[in-house]
């Protein structure tokens, strides 16, 4: 039989206490660091969020232009599942060359406009003229276009043309924009129920914070004010539009 003296009992308790503390540290520290990562990302999270009603009545198309593989990959990873989750149907295109994919894009858009009363477009491309691809479509179909977001530099001026073409709302950037910062916030908040006006404000505010952080990290070499003037998005049309609304 083992001889349990008071000394060995104390040692056992001490060792058990050490193991419990080590386990607690090893489980809690990663959780704390995860919270720090969320804080650094600068956006709230949407755990267990529900899809706003009317998913079956809306469709979305997204197109990414020909950029380096890493940018194409990042855009695909961020966008594709969001569209699949929040829209009844979605199409995602990546161009291999500038201007290619017109036939496929227009065919998918026609199908979306024929079958869904609300169709949103995400033009995730540098300065572009996708507007020209849609002009030949019948006006009755074009009227079903609801929201157009265009990341293109200097493409804010296309807003009136998109509204004239049939869209209810257009968001674009005025100058040489750094739109990915904005798009991250816009897409998440708009899809989780914010109006376009609210999502726009959150996006611009989030982008401003990111620019300030980059400016601070670069020791002032990066001009956050200039970047913001070039990038701050604005909205034309119905800024009260929400994901569940029908045109």
């Amino acid at each position, binding site marked *: 039989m083992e001889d349990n003296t008071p000394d060995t009992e104390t040692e056992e308790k001490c060792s058990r206490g050490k193991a419990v503390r080590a386990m607690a540290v090893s489980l809690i520290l990663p959780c704390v660091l995860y919270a720090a990562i969320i804080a650094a990302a600068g956006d709230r999270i949407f755990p267990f969020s529900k899809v706003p009603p009317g998913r079956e009545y809306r469709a979305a198309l997204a197109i990414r232009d020909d950029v380096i593989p890493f940018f194409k990959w990042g855009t695909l990873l961020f966008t594709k*599942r969001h569209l699949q989750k929040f829209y009844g149907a979605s199409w995602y295109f990546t161009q291999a060359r500038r201007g290619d994919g017109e036939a496929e894009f227009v065919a998918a858009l026609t199908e979306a406009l024929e079958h869904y009363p609300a169709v949103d477009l995400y033009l995730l491309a540098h300065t572009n003229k996708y507007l020209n691809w849609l002009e030949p479509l019948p006006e009755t179909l074009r009227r079903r276009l609801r929201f157009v977001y265009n990341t293109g530099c200097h493409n804010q001026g296309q807003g009136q043309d998109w509204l004239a073409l049939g869209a209810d709302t257009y968001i674009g950037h005025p100058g040489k924009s750094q739109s990915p910062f904005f798009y991250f916030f816009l897409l998440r908040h708009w899809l989780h129920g914010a109006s376009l006006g609210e999502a726009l404000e959150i996006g611009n505010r989030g982008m401003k914070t990111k620019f300030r952080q980059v400016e601070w990290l670069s020791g002032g070499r990066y001009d956050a004010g200039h970047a913001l003037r070039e990038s701050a998005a604005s909205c034309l049309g119905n800024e009260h539009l929400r994901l569940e609304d029908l045109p």
Partner: protein
Amino acid sequence: MIRNYGHFLLAFAVLLFQVFPGIFIYVAPGLAYAPGHSLVEARAWTVSIAGLACLALAGLLLTSAASYRLLTRSRAVIAWPMVLFFCVPAWLLSVFYLHAVLVFLAWV
């Protein structure tokens, strides 16, 4: 000898392991989009998310194991600096990749 110092080696290894997600992020876009790519876009999303998720979770588990072993098998004066210099950066990278995966999945 390795048995005696295994927990120190594991601490080095978990930080070294973070090279793999870096390599994955470097290689995956090329597999999907570089000229002559081998992965079709329809599968690129699934493969990329699965790969990143596995690497993030493996990094988390390994780092937590390393931290536990350091804290139970070494004196506090040695264990804590090692947790700080090896485990915390590895955890940070792992939870960053995990958060990215959860955002890409539209779960958070």
